Each structure stands twice: as C-alpha cells, then as structure tokens.
C-alpha cells in the first residue's frame, strides 16, 4: 500500500455563527496575514511528509473556509520544485467546472516536467457546492466532465501538431500543447467516485478510482462496482487501482491520538452548507435528491456534531497508537476487499504543524512499513 499525506488547507478561524461555510461566507472573515502563515505551514507539512517517505496529495475547492487552495496547480507547482521524491497527487482538477480543459492539460504538463515526472493527475466532477463559484451548470455535468477529460488526455498524447475539437462543450481548431508531460504516454490518472454508479466508467479506462470518507458501509460498493466492470472486460483489478481517503492521526497512545483525531473532525463539523448548495438542480440523480429531501443520502453527515467514536466506528477516522491505527486500517482493508492507496487527511482545522508532523513521523516509522506489505 502507498500512503499519501493530504491537507485541504483549511482556514479554521471561523465566527461562532455562520449560515454557510461554502459559497457565501464573506471573505472579510479571512485574515490575509493569518492565511499567508497557514499557506507556509501547509507547504512545510507537505515537505516534511515528502522527507518522511510519504507521497503527497492536494485538492482544490472554491469560495470556502474548508479549503484555501482554490488553484491547486499553483501549490502543486510549488511542491514540484521544493519536494524531492514523493508522488504529487492532485485530486483533483475540477474539470466539469473549468472553462478551459486545454489550460488544465498545460498546467499538469508543467507540474509533471518540474517534478521530473512525479505527478499523479486526478480529476473530479466537483462537489455540488462548487458549481456556484464557476457558474457552471449542474445539469449534464458528467457529460461535460467526460468531454473535458477526453480533450485533456488527447492533448497530452498528440505530438504531431494541432488537432481539431468541436465537441458539445469545448471547441478548438488548433490544439497543440507545449510543454507536454514528462511521463509517457501521460501521468497516471485518478478519478473520484463516491458512489457505485460512477466507478464502472473509471474501470473501463483502467484509471485509479478514489473514494472519500465512505467508511465500512459505502466503500465496498464502489470498489466492487469497479472490480465487476473490470472482470466483465476480462481484466483484473490490481490493488493500486483503488484508493481510500480517511482522516488519520497516529499518536504515542490511543487517548492522545484520539484527542487530535477529534480536532480533525473540524472538517466535518464545521462544514455547514444550506440545502440550496448541497442540492443544486440536476446535480444528483432523482433518487438521490429524494433521499436528501428526506434528510438522508450523501452529505447527511456534514455539519453535524459528530464525534471521534462515531467516525472511528464508521471507518472514516483512524486514530490511535501505531498498532491501533494499523489494525483499524487493516480492518477496513479486509472489509472492502483491499485497496492499494491510502489518502490520509492528517491535518484539518486547528491541528498544529507540530502535531501534524509528529503524527506523520510516527505513522511513517511505525505504521507505514506494515501497510507496505499489504
């Protein structure tokens, strides 16, 4: 198993009361001086993770205090230069919301070149509350995602001069990107899917499927859908095609580690989002919206006062001493039929740089060697 350290670059200093952490939280709340310091802390944490032998993961969100990293190619490009060995996974580029997929292809190529081929290029459709920031239409978003995706992959792989693209969503007459990626034929591709419906299409292309915070209940259906589609195509599913993201903290003892794990839950507990942003028209399937309107379905866990105990039980949080953390990960691993990539959200909310790096040191020394054998 490979482990990627992930920080969402939170801005944790929130007022006591706010209606929505997404879309409309006024940026007057954001103190640029504090934000500048946080960016440096977060980059330092990634550098430390790289030195500890971990791979690195970054992501992008917009108009939200949960994630200041609103232009992930920028931070990824910094890491490409200041880190030495770890893979740099962007998970992902929200290409259903990016107006110019060609620009994304170029950005990824630059990062791949500067990092000497360490980029893992991930693509996401984007969570529902991202559509407002780009004014992108939630109806038929999947279709737009896949057209953008196909265009980017073609741009990476075409080396004989310009090609033509007049699709439904994107139109170009002279596509010929410079630079092109260092890795051939292109950087490894990752795509997220937190429901079984999205996984088969990723399986058909053989890319890595990643699922986030889906725990014991909802992870296996995604991985099974992927494996099933591969089997139908006569292909196997190596473990490295499957990735799971969780909140993780490793400490000297269980009590201390769970206390920091509790701090990681800022990510879930502060994520208050009104219905109009959780459920934009046409984003979810009709069946899913019916569940949401009855208070269930995806996002039901956000913005609630969840606890470490609850999330440990669900397999959303792993926290404890090294032995405990290994056992927790192994239990989920066995339950879902195995996976080859662990995406570790090891910083969130008010977890300090010291705490973050100590947790990573313990993890990489005491837990990671055992996971590598899985």
């Amino acid at each position, binding site marked *: 198993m490979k482990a990627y350290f992930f920080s969402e670059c939170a801005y944790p200093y929130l007022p006591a009361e706010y209606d929505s952490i997404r879309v409309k939280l006024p940026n007057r709340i954001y103190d640029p001086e504090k934000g500048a310091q946080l960016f440096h802390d977060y980059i330092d944490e990634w550098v430390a993770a790289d030195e500890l032998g971990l791979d690195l993961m970054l992501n992008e969100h917009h108009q939200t205090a949960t994630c200041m990293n609103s232009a992930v190619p920028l931070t990824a490009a910094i890491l490409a230069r200041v880190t030495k060995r770890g893979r740099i996974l962007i998970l992902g580029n929200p290409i259903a919301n990016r107006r110019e997929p060609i620009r994304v292809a170029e950005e990824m190529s630059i990062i791949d070149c500067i990092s000497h081929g360490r980029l893992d290029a991930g693509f996401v459709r984007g969570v529902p509350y991202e559509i407002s920031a780009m*004014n992108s*239409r939630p109806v038929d978003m999947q279709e737009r995602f896949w057209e953008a995706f196909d265009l980017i992959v073609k741009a990476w792989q075409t080396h004989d001069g310009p090609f033509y693209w007049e699709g439904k969503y994107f139109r170009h007459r002279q596509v010929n990107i410079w630079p092109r990626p260092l890795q051939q034929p292109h950087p490894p591709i990752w795509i997220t899917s937190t429901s079984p419906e999205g996984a088969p299409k990723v399986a058909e292309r053989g890319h890595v499927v990643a699922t986030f915070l889906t725990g014991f209940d909802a992870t296996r259906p995604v991985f099974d859908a992927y494996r099933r589609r591969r089997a139908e195509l006569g292909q196997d599913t190596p473990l490295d095609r499957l990735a799971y993201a969780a909140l993780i903290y490793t400490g000297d003892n269980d009590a201390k580690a769970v206390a920091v794990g509790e701090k990681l839950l800022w990510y879930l507990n502060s994520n208050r989002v*009104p*219905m*109009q942003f959780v459920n934009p028209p*046409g984003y979810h399937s*009709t069946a899913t919206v019916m569940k949401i*309107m009855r208070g269930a379905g995806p996002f039901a866990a956000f913005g609630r006062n969840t606890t470490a105990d609850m999330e440990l039980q669900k397999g959303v949080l792993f926290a404890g001493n090294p032995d405990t953390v290994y056992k927790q990960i192994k239990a989920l691993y066995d339950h879902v039929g195995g996976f080859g990539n662990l995406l570790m959200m090891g910083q969130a909310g008010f977890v300090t740089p010291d705490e973050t790096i100590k947790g990573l040191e313990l993890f990489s020394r005491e837990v990671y060697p055992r996971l590598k054998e899985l």
Partner: protein
Amino acid sequence: MQFFRGGSGAPLLLLDSGFSFQHDLAARLAKTFNVIAPLHPGFGGSRRPEHIDTVDDLAYLYLDLLESFDLRGVTVVGASLGGWVAAEMAVRCSHRLAKLVLVDSLGIKVSDRETPDIADIFAIYEEELMALLFRDPQKFKIDARALSEQALACMIEDRSAHALYIWEPYAHNPKLLGRLGRITIPTLVIWGGNDGLVKPDYGRKFAAAIPNATFTTVAQCGHLPQVEQPERLVEEIVRFAGDRRAS
C-alpha cells in the same frame, strides 16, 4: 411532445412558467379559446429529446407545433420561462401569431452588469424563494414530505429542466432586448404588482422595447398570477385577445 388541448374559439398557445405550482389556467382559458398547452420537454415527467436543451430550441419547437397543426391567428401566452420562449418565437417568425401576452416574463437584461434583474432562484433558501414568488407565500407552500413518490420525482425533474433552460446566461438572452423591436403584433405585458423575482419595472422596460405593447399589473400578486390571481389574469387575457374569431 405532451400537451393539453381543449376548448373552442381562437387558437391560443399557452407556455408555462417552469415553476412546479399547480394551476388551472389552461382550463380557464379553454372557456374562451382553443387552447394548446405543451409541457416543456423535461417537465411534468415528460421525456426531453437530447437535442432540446435551450430556450432557442423551445421557440423553434413551438413554432413547428403551430406549423404542424396549421394554426393561424394564434395568441401566444407565456409566463416567466414561457414568456421568454414566447418572445423568442415572436422575434423569429410571427406570421402565425395574432397577439402576444407576456406574464412576468424572463428573457432580457435591462440593468447594468453588476445589478441582477432576476434573483438567483438556485442560490437561496426555499422560504426566500417563496417570498419572492408570492404575495402570500404561506398559501402556496408545498410540503415535499406529503407528496407521493411520483409527484416528488416529477418536481425534482422539473427543477433540473428549469435549470437546464435558464442557467446561463441566467434567465435571459443578451440579444433578445435588441430584437424585441421586431415584434409588431399587439402585445400585452402583464406583471404581478408584487413580483419579487422580477420586478414590475423590468416588465415596463420589456413592454417599452416592443413597438405595439401595453403594460398592466395584477394587484395582490407575485411572480405567478396564474397561481395566485388566476381570475384576474384570465380577465386581462380575454379582454385583450378574446374578441377574435377563430380563423
């Protein structure tokens, strides 16, 4: 295409608002007119063909509908989204049209780039939306939990279809205002006096851009007169268009 057809008299094409509130405007108008009221594709549980995904497509679809029934002297009545479609039809081709009635219509941009003409219905709470739509929101509140599975699914799909047609540019065609001068048939622009979604002043500007248009308001009424003040709306439409003989 699914549509209601009923009544006798002069032909009237009725284009609905895009909002999922029950009303009986088609039946009321059928007492005076021969009414055709299509469901916009994707609404009311209807299937939307893949090639229909813009207001432009709807305008051509309904022009083709008038053609296929060989209807002439048609009064087109459109509310909100339907008003936008009606205006797009009229600027394209009005030889089958006799009169045009726009009810709290969307479709044009009148204010400067930093002033919204039409509130963003997809970015506000349900209660805020209701307050924009109705003079008396309590009266028209829909309890989603009380709806049947089928009705709830239908409402959810209506909302998707609505977004599909009006998402961007939001609820307007930047070119339409400049084309309204092409509409030469008599036009009535009716507005709910308390419309909070699209203010009556927008309606006045809409009317001012159409050469042969008059403007009137319906009192005690928000964005959807067909739901909130149907009798008053029908009176206005009949007074304006009801004296025509079927042709």
